[in-house]
């Protein structure tokens, strides 16, 4: 172990090390001659495997500590990315590289493509990366003798030899990438520091990387980010924005920064750049402005609480350095005149600091300060909280209130919701920009890289539309609209639950609305086949306690459902009602805001929807589609997080109870805050299987799990943590129960976009478009489906990744089954973005996470009470 490695293991900050240079230097000298590049491998055991969960901190801070790590890196290409990832972000494998699930699924190793459907010409937001034939990237390891600590110094010393290594290079302090091969495998050069010290630099060739190696992919992304920076794009989060070209929406005090999200990855056939338009919404309002306006709205004694409620958790942008921070706390005892100790030990006030450092003036000297905690430690050094001045912090993003403001969202959509043609034009602008920028072109030329100038085009398939089955009827719908509300309006339902004994609770003011609901229900229910008696009508005061008292007094064991007319969208009343009726007294309930019933012209349509929803909540069934598989159980899982208010996360689990996928069993797991990976799946699946058995008198021979809510970079954990829970559970059912299991990860938030070529222009691809070539990943069994129809803007395809599959089903059938399941969500008579079980699981987790906060009563679990 070198001295530095030992120091690192002991957790000594790098500063102390400088005090004892002989140890580190000596041992470094000792090791140097002993590793000519061939014997390098034998050194490996010296370096303990990293014990941290996420190896590597931020490159800039870590600086010289890279060196020992680099030695350890050369075994596996996978680790090399860690030391070369671009700086400033949380270093995670966002692209789930290295999760090779396809090779374990025997029947798709050869081909994972489907076959059915009509061909359609598509364009996707991808550009091929092209490089010269026989292109390779040369990776070198750079050693300094005597050891140099500062990374900047290391670069400076190395680049004194620009004539040797050339102008084109990427260097992180120890690994050097060059587009060319140096004449010798090991090159020794000498540099002089400013102090006149001679330094021997050893540059050793360690690797010749083909264009498709994982390290190369990482390298492309770094180079591309460098190009974006050259074009003066500003990095916010993972994306890059152009602050020079903002769109201002003055009447809502908003500002939109256009930008791009980009990634370069190995796709099915080639390495491509995926670029999509992204918008950052800034408010031309500082935190201080916001506090002022809040002060006028609330009483003085509630002001601090109100501020905390509104501000903690929001992301602010400081324009002086274009950085974003999360507000974690407000320090009311401090103000800008307070002082703090700088790194060099001098005391300085915030006013002076901001004036000197950023030339920013602070006018309100009595404002409190905001505290932003760094979310993690850097190595062993804990970085203190960052203090921000409200006056200099601009609010970003939209609040819930703004989202509910219809006019604002409409004005915003003009700029952010782009039609397929507009979007293609915006993406094209990025490539144009790159073409026009001479520096960018030069950099690309020097590396021997270039991008295709036109978007990727290929053919997809549009699978056949489904037939909607209702009692005694079979309907076709117009596949362009993916909606059958008109077609099925008057048809009887598959299974209608009678409304024999039900409560209708309303306040005096809403008597008319309640009456209207009742009359219209009498109009619409007969054609659906719902038998209905007059409701028990109860008038209450508009107070939460009044509602609860009525519920306690009036509910009998025979009550089918409770309908409450609420006078506002106030959440507390809704929460209280739902909590009582989902846990203590398990009865389906339907809440209706009175205002939605107020328009006579739409009343009938709305009441129809309410009637359908009530029927589902009581255990009724609306429609079905053909499922050509027997004994099949479908499971859907989704998670709900409310990290802002620090509530617990909820995992919703939904499993089908019959072969027609019309009845669903549900459970949920309450987990710690922000947890995406589910711990209690075994118990969930066990109860689901038992419930299935009760219904069918046999166990399913196939189980297909749709898992939604998986973030970037979590795929590996999902495969190795959740899938074993399912397998474990199936094993405990019985030694010889061996059903076929398929686990499919569903991802809604992808930057892939498809455009259909129609005539001269571009349109959204029609619902049912399946893509399983070109833009999928070779190491996965994955595909895209566009299942929904959108009226304006670009449709977003949903990505499906089959991570475990013993079903032997043809890829075509898995794709079509997935599309069929997108038809089965009963709260929307149309096709939705995800399979119905995922949406049900989402709904369940949302209700529990927002209102109930604990597992609902299991007596409700075979009904869709959470719709």
């Amino acid at each position, binding site marked *: 172990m070198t001295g530095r490695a030992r120091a690192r293991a002991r957790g000594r900050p790098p500063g102390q090390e400088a005090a004892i240079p002989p140890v580190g230097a000596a041992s470094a000298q000792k090791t140097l001659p002993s590793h000519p590049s061939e014997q390098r491998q034998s050194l490996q055991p010296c370096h303990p495997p990293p*014990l941290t969960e996420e190896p590597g901190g931020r490159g800039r801070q870590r600086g010289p500590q890279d060196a020992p790590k680099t030695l350890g890196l050369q075994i596996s290409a996978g680790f090399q990315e860690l030391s070369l990832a671009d700086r400033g972000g949380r270093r995670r494998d966002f692209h789930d590289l290295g999760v090779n699930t396809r090779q374990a699924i025997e029947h798709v190793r050869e081909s994972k493509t489907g076959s059915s459907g009509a061909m359609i010409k598509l364009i996707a937001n991808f550009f091929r990366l092209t490089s010269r034939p026989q292109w390779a990237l040369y990776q070198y390891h750079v050693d300094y003798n005597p050891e140099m600590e500062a990374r900047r110094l290391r670069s400076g010393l190395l680049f004194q030899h620009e004539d040797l290594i050339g102008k084109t290079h990427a260097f992180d302090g120890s690994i050097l990438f060059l587009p060319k091969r140096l004449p010798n495998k090991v090159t020794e050069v000498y540099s002089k520091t400013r102090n006149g010290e001679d330094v021997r630099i050893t540059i050793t060739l360690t690797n010749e990387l083909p264009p498709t190696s994982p390290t190369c992919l990482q390298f492309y992304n770094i180079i591309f980010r460098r190009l974006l920076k050259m074009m003066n794009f500003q990095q916010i989060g993972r994306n890059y924005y152009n602050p020079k070209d903002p769109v201002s929406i003055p009447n809502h005090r908003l500002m939109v920064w256009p930008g791009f999200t980009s990634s370069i990855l190995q796709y099915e056939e080639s390495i491509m750049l995926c670029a999509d338009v992204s918008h950052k919404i800034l408010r031309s309002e500082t935190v201080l402005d916001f506090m002022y306006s809040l002060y006028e709205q609330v009483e003085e004694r509630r002001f601090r609480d109100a501020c905390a409620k509104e501000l903690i958790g929001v992301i602010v942008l400081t324009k002086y350095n274009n950085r974003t921070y999360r507000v974690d706390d407000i320090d009311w005892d401090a103000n800008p005149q307070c002082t703090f100790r700088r790194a060099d030990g001098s005391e300085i006030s915030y006013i002076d600091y901001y004036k000197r450092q950023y030339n920013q003036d602070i006018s309100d000297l009595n404002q409190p300060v905001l505290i932003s905690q760094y979310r993690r430690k850097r190595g062993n050094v804990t970085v203190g909280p960052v203090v921000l001045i409200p006056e200099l912090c601009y609010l970003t993003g939209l609040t819930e209130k703004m989202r509910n403001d219809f006019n604002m969202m409409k004005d915003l959509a003009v700029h952010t919701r782009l039609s397929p043609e507009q979007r293609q034009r915006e993406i094209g602008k990025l490539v144009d920009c790159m073409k026009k920028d001479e520096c960018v072109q030069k950099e690309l030329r020097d590396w021997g890289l270039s991008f295709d100038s036109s978007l990727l085009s290929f053919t997809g398939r549009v699978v056949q539309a489904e037939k909607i089955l209702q009692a005694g009827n079979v309907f076709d719908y117009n596949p362009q609209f993916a909606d059958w509300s008109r077609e099925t309006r008057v048809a009887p339902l598959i299974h209608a639950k009678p409304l024999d004994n039900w409560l209708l609770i309303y306040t005096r003011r809403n008597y008319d609305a309640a009456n209207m609901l009742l009359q219209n229900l009498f109009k619409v229910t007969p054609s659906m086949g719902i038998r209905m008696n007059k409701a028990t009508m109860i008038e209450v005061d508009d107070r939460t306690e009044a509602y609860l008292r009525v519920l306690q007094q009036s509910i009998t064991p025979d009550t089918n459902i409770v309908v409450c007319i609420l006078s506002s969208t106030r959440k507390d009343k809704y929460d209280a009602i739902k909590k009582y009726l989902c846990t203590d007294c398990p009865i389906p309930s339907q809440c209706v805001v009175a205002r939605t019933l107020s328009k006579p012209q739409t009343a009938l349509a709305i009441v129809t929807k309410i009637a359908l929803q009530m029927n589902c909540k009581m255990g009724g069934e609306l429609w079905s589609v053909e499922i050509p598989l027997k004994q099949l159980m479908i499971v859907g899982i989704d998670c709900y997080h409310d990290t802002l208010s620090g509530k617990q996360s909820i995992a919703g689990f939904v499993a089908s109870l019959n072969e027609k996928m019309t009845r669903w069993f549900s459970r949920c797991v309450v987990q710690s805050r922000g947890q995406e990976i589910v711990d209690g799946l075994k118990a969930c699946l066990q109860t689901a299987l038992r419930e299935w058995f009760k219904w069918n008198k046999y166990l399913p021979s196939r189980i297909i799990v749709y898992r939604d809510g998986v973030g970037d970079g979590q795929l590996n954990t999902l495969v190795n943590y959740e899938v074993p829970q399912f397998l474990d559970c199936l094993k405990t059912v019985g030694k010889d129960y061996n059903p076929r299991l398929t686990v499919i990860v569903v991802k809604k938030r992808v930057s892939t976009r498809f455009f259909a070529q129609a005539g001269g222009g571009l349109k959204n691809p029609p619902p049912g478009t399946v893509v399983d070539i070109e833009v999928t990943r070779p190491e996965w069994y994955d595909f895209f489906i566009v299942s929904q129809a959108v009226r304006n803007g670009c449709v977003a395809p949903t990505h499906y990744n089959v991570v475990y599959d013993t079903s032997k089903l043809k890829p075509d059938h898995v794709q079509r089954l997935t599309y069929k399941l997108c038809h089965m969500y009963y709260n929307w008579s149309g096709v939705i973005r995800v399979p119905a079980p995922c949406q049900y699981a989402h709904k369940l987790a949302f209700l529990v996470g927002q209102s109930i906060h604990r597992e609902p009563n299991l007596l409700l679990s075979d009904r869709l009470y959470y719709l």
Partner: protein
Amino acid sequence: MDPEALVQCPYDKAHQIRVSRLPYHLVKCQRNNPQVARSLEVCPFNARHRMPRSELQRHIACCPDQRLLFNSQELSLCTGDQAKQPKVPVAWQAPPCQEDWEAEVDELEEAAPFILNTTVSDLPLEGDSSALVAPPNWRQGVGPAAAAVTTGHLAKGPDKQEQNRSRKVVAQPSSPAVCAWVAGAPLPPPAHLLI
């Protein structure tokens, strides 16, 4: 629990892991310590709880996530008592499917016969012994016929409950799998047997 709190990794006592990162760490540590992994058992209620085999029973008795299953027992009692056994609605029957994907799967498989006692070695799980092992005399017969015999034998009465552990269940598309514990007998008490 506070997601930032530290807990000890079951595979390496030296590892202190934040609660929120534990699943990610367990995956990694399980792979790095295959020997330790073989000796550890996973709690049926919460996949985070991993302990030596000897401690599993004691843990199951006091696991904080146990309610998941207790509730489900309540459920079975409730539904049984009130005779609210759900019935699959018979009013509507789906028209016969025009396709049969099962048939196409069978084509792919070259009509491989269904085999009982399939080993679990093809599952990517290491060191898991939570599956119940059937007594050796039950392993002689292979095939659906043997399974039928076993289920018949098991359904005799509650005095045979102990042997219910090795329920023979056939998962063959053409003949629905039948479970022993439906015979009206109450569920076997050990929690890890639950389903």
